[in-house]
């Protein structure tokens, strides 16, 4: 699957695609804010990407690495989050228009399913044994859970601060907020706070991803900060197991002056449990958190990498190269192309020595 043939890889060794990966055709017109692959419940691979151009696009990714644009939906304001329903029939999208919409792929219709008092930063579909709902985290400092049939949220949880990042892997949910707040929720029967977490990161939390243990049970999370640092936090192990590592920093050899970039996104490989980080420096890094080693780091893209994700079986790694605003609007060049690349990653993300 997703074989390694280079026939379709775009271009030669040009600067816009230093890793020689497959480029997604018809990319968004503005920075990519969110990226998600379809779940395992559908056989094909569909990739959706939300963008600051207010659109959510959907491509089908073929075995050969070829991408076919399928459809596009618009929101009233920039899209900040997308996610799939567990059955792969719907895509949820949320953003600056303070609403979340449900995009039914079969009918290509979208309806509003959630509303907040401020832009919605994250959305996740929760599939529990007894219920299913959409969780939205917003800058209005609430976490809301929506039964799609009701205009009122089924549950509102107040957050200490604005929601900046979240991840859901049933039965665990993690929400990172402004002011370096972090709450872990237990979603069984109904969402409730699990336990307070102390982290050693000193800077704003930017992205969080839940990882599983060997038995495929969610057991901890990795959280990335704006200061080029990722903390690995186990919830049920001794604090000894928790650690942070630095990433997405220039080595400073050029002028002896180190630039530290934000970790823009973290994703765990669904099979190997290894982790990838993408950063404002325009690189991605593959890491083995258990061996605490780096598996691979990419060449530097022309622009930051804003988001990344794996497909359901861990064959494809998708990453979006676009401006992340880390240098302010002065460095925003609307003329620069926003790109999404697909990389066969299964082998590269294998832990080096399996214990």
């Amino acid at each position, binding site marked *: 699957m997703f074989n390694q043939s280079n026939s379709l890889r775009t271009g030669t060794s040009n600067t816009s695609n230093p890793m020689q990966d497959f480029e997604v055709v018809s990319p968004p017109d503005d920075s990519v*804010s969110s990226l998600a692959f379809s779940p395992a419940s559908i056989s094909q691979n569909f990739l959706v990407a939300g963008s600051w151009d207010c659109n959510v696009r959907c491509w089908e990714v073929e075995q050969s690495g070829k991408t076919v644009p399928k459809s596009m939906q618009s929101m*009233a304001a920039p899209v900040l989050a997308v996610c799939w329903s567990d059955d792969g029939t719907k895509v949820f999208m949320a953003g600056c228009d303070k609403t979340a919409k449900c995009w039914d792929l079969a009918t290509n219709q979208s309806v509003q399913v959630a509303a907040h008092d401020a832009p919605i*930063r994250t959305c996740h579909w929760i599939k529990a044994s007894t219920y299913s709902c959409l969780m939205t985290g917003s800058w209005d400092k609430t976490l809301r859970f929506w039964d799609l049939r009701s205009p009122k949220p089924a549950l509102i949880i107040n957050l200490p601060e604005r929601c900046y990042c979240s991840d859901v892997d049933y039965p665990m949910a993690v929400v990172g907020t*402004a002011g370096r707040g972090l709450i872990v929720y237990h979603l069984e029967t109904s969402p409730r706070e699990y336990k307070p977490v102390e982290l050693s990161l000193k800077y704003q939390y930017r992205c969080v991803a839940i990882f599983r243990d060997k038995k495929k049970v969610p057991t901890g999370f990795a959280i990335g900060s704006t*200061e080029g640092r990722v903390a690995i936090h186990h919830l049920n192990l001794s604090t000894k197991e928790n650690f942070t590592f630095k990433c997405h920093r220039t080595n400073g050899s050029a002028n002896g*002056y180190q630039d*530290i970039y934000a970790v823009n996104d973290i994703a765990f490989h669904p099979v190997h449990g290894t982790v990838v980080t993408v950063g404002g420096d325009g690189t991605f890094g593959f890491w083995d958190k258990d061996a605490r080693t780096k598996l691979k780091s990419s060449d530097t893209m022309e622009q930051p990498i804003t988001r990344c994700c794996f497909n359901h079986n861990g064959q494809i790694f998708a990453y979006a190269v676009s401006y992340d*605003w*880390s240098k302010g609007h002065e460095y925003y060049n609307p003329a620069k192309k926003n790109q999404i690349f697909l990389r066969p990653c299964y082998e590269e993300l294998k832990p080096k020595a399996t214990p």
Partner: protein
Amino acid sequence: MGRKKKKQSRPWCWYPFCFLEDCDDNDEDDLQRSLLRNHISLLADNLYSGCRSSPPPQEEARRTDTVYCNREFEDEKILIQHQKAKHFKCHICHKKLYTGPGLSIHCMQVHKEAIDKVPNSLPNRSNIEIEIYGMEGIPPNDAKEHERQRNGGRPGSPSSGEDEPVQKKPKPEGLLGSAPGAMPGMATGLPGMPPQPGMPPLPGMAPHPGMAPHPGMPPHPGMPPMHPMMPMGHVGPPFMGPGMMPGMSGMPSGMQPPVSGASIPPARPLFPSAAAAAVSTAASTASVTGSAPLGTDFKPITSVASGGGSIGPIKPTFPAYSSAGDSICATAIGNSLANSGDQKVTLIATTGAASKIIHPPEDLSLEEIRARLPKYQRRQIDESGRSAQSEAVVTVSQHQQAAALQQAAVQQQQAVQQQQQQQQVQQQQQAAANVAAAAFQADQQQRQQQAAALNALQQQQQRFPRPPQAVMVPASAAAMPVSSVALMAPLMRPTMTLAAPALIHGGNMMRPPPMGLPPGVRKIDDVREIVYTTDSRRQKERMRGGKNVMIIQIETIEIKILDRMIRHRISTTQRLVVLVRLYVLTVRLQGARSLLDECRMNPVWLLKPCFTIQALQGMIGALPPGAAMHPAFAAAPMGFPGPMLTPMMHPRFR
């Protein structure tokens, strides 16, 4: 002493320096420390200027001897350390380079900043082109001259002044703690003192930290002989006392207004920065005692006065470096500008000793910062109404309807304000185009041009008032007039002609008298937009623009400062804070120094995002109530007895 005589050729520093810092300042030079240092140097200056005329001539000679010596060191390693820390340290990122050219190249490449002199050096030894590393590279003439001075230049004790490595200077805290009482003898007898004979005699010469000419300054080779050589040897042990440290603080002493420690009650800190610290102390105590947390409103002056009971225990509770969730963390002013009530924006320290975090200084997520761009909001306004109607929305919440209404209102408002702003733009262009255009074309490279154009575009966009419902975005889009700021010559060079004392008429800004607001109350929450203008007539428009537009009259100097801040990606919030700070300082000093001078001496002020609402409150609070913020204050300052100021004022301003 005797021991030192044996060492005939100890390494010495070619750059005579004058600075109040420990030589061994380490790399963990965080904001707090540097801020503290600012306080120190200010306070120290204060003290110094208070006492500088009282010591007998002999004392003076001794002091300057110490201050302006060519320091000698135990060995070359230490000398190199000293040079790195004092002379080759980048003032922006505090990286320590090895040579002057190295520093120059670093600043040019990393910060796009031209440095034309070695920091903390006297003007005749400030050539940044000369490559000196330790003892290597010192021009042979100078080396000879140094030898000569050491051996023969001073009858009696050949090297008493220079030889002794300046001892560990007192820690800032200690200095501060003892500040008011440290120099009791020297703090008196000021009023009526004639101006110092050593007042800067060269009007065209750029004032420079540490170059304040002084009767006792040892004449360095190559320096225009300003004073007859004074006997310098018989001054006993080199000065080590804390009271003298102020002289080393890097301010041209000749321009210092005399502020004697005795004349100012300790309850009213002399300088805004000190006051800021005092306020933050007050703030922290306040929060401890459970009173209301610092809000977006300014604190009443009285509380500041009572809070800043003494200058001594400065608690560096500077939020710039504190954690984001800190309850007493500073609320950046832009917050209140954005009218976003309960939100607090912390600032993060993005620049470390050897690293820079590539992130805007506000502790907001990049998405929030980005989302507040009008580009992304307008679309929301345009389309949300339409989508609400056209789409089969399952739930149209009340929020949305309310929002739609609000948006309609906002659009109207926009139209009105847009008209006003067009007028503003025209005026500003008239005012600034002359100054700006030439320099702009000469200086900007293509990339910068692009950036500027982009900048201009963005700013133009930002000139639209932001919709009130967009509360998630603090730090308002304080519009910088494109014409006057973005196009200015990018560098603030010392060769630039000095403007008249540049007052930001922040008096109006902070406490606009005609607006009918009671003094001390600043309705800053209502301010949606900040307009910087060079045109004083604009003050009338402030009335028209209503209280939502804050208009700051600035001089060209400030424009340059602003421009520089913009180029360093310092947020509008901080720009404002810096401006206010500079304004307050200027008022404080009664125009005795131009802002440019201030900035030259403490470029850190401009480049470090370390000023917060607390600091701002401190500045305002530190001023005498009422008159302080009024522009007329410049003529009749309170808090400083008038007669004391006059003799010490810089000739330029008399």
